[in-house]
């Protein structure tokens, strides 16, 4: 079974807080955690720094409860895009973006959602849970995203903090489920404190509230997260594929008469 993963842990400047968060995640049973770095383009132009390697930040990673392996910590970048020009950064090949393990995009308009699902090279598309969606989901871009292997991410920590957010989370999740039929969903926290984290089975139960089936809900915390991580790895490694096909040698070539002789006999 794929290990449980929490793909959204905001990376704040407080190192001790992050360490306690990682320990709580390991105690709850998560095998992998992704530290999220959010870039918002509406603010003045920010430089995308190279991701800090987790082994530098945390000298000793906690051991996942129930196994003897250490917690796996990945780096993730989320781009909040509200304008098509912001996406140009993703298309440029020489930037620090390539160094992150997972890339996510947070579209704010319908056109950007369509672009993110069909052409952008990302692993996750974040779905807004803190306010009413300004656009309705349509089937064609969602189906194209599912074919390309892009996953939709839902957060659950805003639902813990505020009751209005709860309504928005559940209503946005239900409208997404109606279109995508429960495929390609990832549920993650955006926990800033260890008390805002929930165990993986609790989160899978939340998936049932959103309208997923039991197996889809568990996959949203385990299998789909692993698929996202692998999708990010393939993005880092492969630019193109070359494959060779064995060409069958034509046996007829030896039997045909050379052209010069043929002309003489016919003439």
């Amino acid at each position, binding site marked *: 079974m794929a290990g449980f993963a929490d793909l959204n842990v905001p990376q704040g400047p407080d190192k001790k807080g992050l360490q306690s968060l990682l320990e709580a995640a390991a105690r709850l049973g998560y095998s992998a955690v992704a530290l999220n770095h959010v870039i918002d383009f509406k603010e003045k132009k920010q430089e995308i720094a190279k991701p800090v390697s987790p082994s530098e930040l945390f000298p000793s990673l906690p051991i996942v*409860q129930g196994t003897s392996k250490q917690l796996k910590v990945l780096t993730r970048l989320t781009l909040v895009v509200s304008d098509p020009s912001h996406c140009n950064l993703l298309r440029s090949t020489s930037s620090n973006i390539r160094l992150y393990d997972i890339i996510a995009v947070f579209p704010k308009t319908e056109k950007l959602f369509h672009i993110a699902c069909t052409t952008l090279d990302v692993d996750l598309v974040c779905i807004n849970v803190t306010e009413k969606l300004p656009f309705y989901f349509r089937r064609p871009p969602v189906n194209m995203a599912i074919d390309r292997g892009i996953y939709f991410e839902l957060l659950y920590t805003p639902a813990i903090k505020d009751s209005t957010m*709860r309504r928005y989370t559940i209503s946005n999740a239900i409208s997404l489920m109606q279109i995508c039929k429960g495929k390609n969903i990832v549920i993650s926290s955006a926990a800033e404190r260890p008390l*805002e984290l929930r165990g993986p*089975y*609790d989160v899978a*139960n939340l998936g049932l*509230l959103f309208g997923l089936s039991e197996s889809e809900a568990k996959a949203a915390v385990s299998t789909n997260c692993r698929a996202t991580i692998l999708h990010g790895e393939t993005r880092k490694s492969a630019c193109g594929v070359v494959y060779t096909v064995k060409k069958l040698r034509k046996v007829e070539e030896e039997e045909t008469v050379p052209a010069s002789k043929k002309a003489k006999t016919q003439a």
Partner: protein
Amino acid sequence: MARAEPPPATFERRVLRSAAGHHYLRVRLELPDGGARPNAAQLKQLVVAALKELHGEVGAALPVDVLTYEEKTLSAILRVVSSGFVKLWSALTLLGFYQNRRCAFRVLQTSPFLLALSGNSRELVLD
């Protein structure tokens, strides 16, 4: 000589889906230190309030019982009708505050049989 064949063995298979009427949950309330700890009645009130917040009056009317409660470790065993199991679990998951203090409900074990809650392999310490 004809040998009497024993009659072919017959068996009947019965599958009972969700035959148990109740589901049992072992939960632990995680409260950061400092401040009064809830007693059993306050815990029941907290559970009902969580259900009301998420599922409304109908959710709050769900038959939930607190079977045991240890105030020292803040762990309890809850019983709920099987039809309301998902509602209770999701309400406990999304509960964030107790008396304006941040808290979290950790669901340790769930089972349709109370006997299964007596042992927890996750807390097993091997020497």
